[in-house]
């Protein structure tokens, strides 16, 4: 008797495992139709999805450099950031929701864009930068070894010593003087 019962139990177990495996093959796709995002008074987002309410969700980019608007991962903040689902392309979403999501993305990926490089000075083995960004003026310090990385095409990321990042979105738009200032790091 017990043997038969055990076998049933095993079969259940196998089924359960297989279902878990099956779920790996499909991306859980969130669409404007099956979700409701709401901004909380505290500045976060809640999500209603498949008749479940997530009091706070976090928004991540899967390809922050190459696909900033696509493959957005929505995760449950209270459950160790477990993935609820992904958004295929933010462009396909209604403006209001898109704005809400982009606000959260902007908070998570805080990357001032450098619009003008005023000076780069090297002293005692560090480079001291003074720049104007779209978020205001900024002074920061970088190492002199590879502080600037290329993220495809003419886009650059500058890493400072505090591991903050600044973006230069088009190298070719910089003036000759600015290029000369950072030439060393390119």
């Amino acid at each position, binding site marked *: 008797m017990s043997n038969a019962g055990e076998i049933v139990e095993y079969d259940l177990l196998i089924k359960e495992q297989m279902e878990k495996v099956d779920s790996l093959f499909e991306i859980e796709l969130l669409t404007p139709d099956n979700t409701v995002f709401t901004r909380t008074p505290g500045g976060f987002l809640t999500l209603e999805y498949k008749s479940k309410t997530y009091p706070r969700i976090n928004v991540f980019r899967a390809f922050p450099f190459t696909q900033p608007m696509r493959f957005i991962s929505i995760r449950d903040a209270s459950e160790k950031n477990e993935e609820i689902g992904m958004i295929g392309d933010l462009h396909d979403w209604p403006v209001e929701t898109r704005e809400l999501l982009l606000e959260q993305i902007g908070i998570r990926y805080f990357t001032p864009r450098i619009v003008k490089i005023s000076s780069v000075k090297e002293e*005692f*083995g560090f480079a001291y930068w003074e720049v104007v960004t779209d978020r205001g003026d900024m002074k920061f310090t970088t190492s002199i070894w590879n502080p600037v990385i290329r993220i495809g095409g003419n886009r650059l990321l500058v890493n400072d010593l505090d591991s903050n990042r600044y973006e230069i979105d088009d190298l070719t738009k910089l003036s000759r003087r600015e290029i000369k200032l950072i030439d060393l790091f390119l």
Partner: protein
Amino acid sequence: MNLKYDVPEGAEKVISGYEETIIYCLPFDVGSDGCLTDNCFVVATDLGLYVVIGSEVTERIDLKLICEIKCEVMVNGGILSVNCDYAERMLLRFTHKYLTQFSYFAKGVELLILGTDKIMISPEPERNCLLCGRILPGTKKCPRCSSRGRFLKRITAMIKPHLRGFLLITMMIILNSILLLTARYVERLFIDDFLIERTGGIYDVVRFFILVLAINITILGAAIFNNRKSARIGTLISRNLREQVYAKLQDCSLSFINDRRPGELINRVHRDTRRIQEFFETAFSRMFSTALSMIGAVTMMAIMDYKITLMALLTAPLILLISFISRKTFKRRFRAQWILEDKANNQLQDALSGIRVVKAFGREEYQSERFRELNGRLADRQSKNEKFWSTFNPAVGTLLAITSLIVLYMGGRNVISGVFSIGELAQFTGYSAILIGPLTWISMFPRQLVQAVTSMERIYDVLDEADEIPDHVTAIKAKIKGDVNFNNVGFGYKPYEPVLRNVSIEVKAGEMIGIVGPSGAGKSTMINLLIRLYDPDEGNILIDGRPLSEWDKSSYHSQIGVVLQETFLFSGSIYENIKYAKPNATEEEVIRASRIANAHDFITLFPDGYNTRVGDKGSTLSGGERQRIAIARAILSDPAILILDEATSSLDTETEFRIQEAIQRLTAGRTTFAIAHRLSTLRKSDRIIVIDGHKIAEFGKHRELMEQRGLYYDLVTAQLQMSRLDKRNVEKVGGESNG
């Protein structure tokens, strides 16, 4: 790091109006609109939390209303969120500049909410110099602000043991300069007295020739002596420094070493000491002697004709300036080339070490293309640099030649007007050559000095570093019985990432304790604290009822045996590696330990037996073999406390079982801590700790935990089921193939 900045005046008045004490104050640099700001602060008092913008308090939250405050790490920034009445709220944002401080701030406010009067302090050193705002190169003191006096003091300290050598060098340098100046004077006498007057015969020419030759040989001799002597002293000094730094690094706390990249520390041992050596070898003697000769030359020239001297000196700043600017350009250009070369090398190395992957995926063409592109850029850069160099060099040469021409022209006029004799003109131009020649490289000196200062700072940063875990004054050196207590222990490698919280356990001597839990939960961290690689941030650990910090470190370490997850073997023989824990162990003891660890058989089968070389450039051992050697090393010294961190994970079940039985017998009456993923490993444990979410989730005997039906139960049943599943699948496959 500072956690209590000055509160803007207006806001301070408002806050003190509430009769509250300001405890923490931090600036935050991202405004609510996402723009950078520099006038926003958050203040915590004993009763409330304030947001200050400009000099105005824009918000006050009563601490009583806050049930949770968190510093959350984001990409390039972070947020401080508070949970008031179960509604989470983003209070403020900041960049990574203040991340560490905010993690302490959040912890500190948590303590305030609990009503304790414990105040958080941040042990992290400041990143910027408080005086000039420059970044500290991984050191505590700023190389610019605090070094002048210290640098001289250190240089003198280094020179002191070699004082005689330095005096000799100095004397030789003076002699050298005098002879250099004299040689020109002798030449003048020769020209004026013998050549112009035509009074001397061939005999005088020979005499002159011998005299000048003698002077030049003496100069050469002195220079050779100087170079050799300085090289000798420089090497001695740097050897001494290297030894000191190396010895000190062994004593430094792990957090000091972990805070710095290994490459950087290796650099401190090698590159920085070499820079100091170079400074003594070249800069010191060469600079000193050149400066002396130049001063001598200028003095002589000024005595002879100050007007021409001034003219000659007029071009000097120009030459200095040009060589200074050009050096910058050179540096820039050649560093760019160097970086490209490095990239090309890396690419090559990548492709070669990954050659199996490259071939397996058939991407040879792609790799070549990538290399071709990089190589093209490198070639471009090289040719540009070469062109620049070949244009620039003659240009500077010409400038130098023009300066000599000016001297020659004005001196020539003097000769015609009868102020100078021809000999004097020769003497004068000789001096001007002494003056102008070294100008091109003299501009290099400030840079060398800066490098030496920085290197010195980085070296002394290590040498001055106090042991973070200092031995207690009256350190205990007793024999360990084996009672281990964790008392509310809390710890995190980074302040904003706690790894263990409120860990409290009592272990009696002789118990075997198993530790299980998901990866990253803090199992190995517990072990790290127990072997005192780090001291806990909160609470303490008691060994035999006395705080671990009061035990003598080396005495304590000699009584514990450790097998760590990553079994590191040093370059050397297997014998030396096993003996590492107990240097005076006999061969018999080593063999006994190896037999217990089930390593004796495979070791004796090696052609070189226990003398087989392992580690770097040695023979490669399998993971299981390395683990067994590490186990032998750990049990060799008969430790009172044995710590096994996944010590048998690479072994097959049978071997594991045998080793366990042996260790069990060996460690009867000794305290053992064992971490394992394979729960069967722990079946002999007296009690089991389950760590989950940085806390102790369950602690008790196997039976008790199974009855609780908690996490441990889940883990055990899951492993059992999976192994049964495996078995069933095997049987199924077996059955099918039979049928």
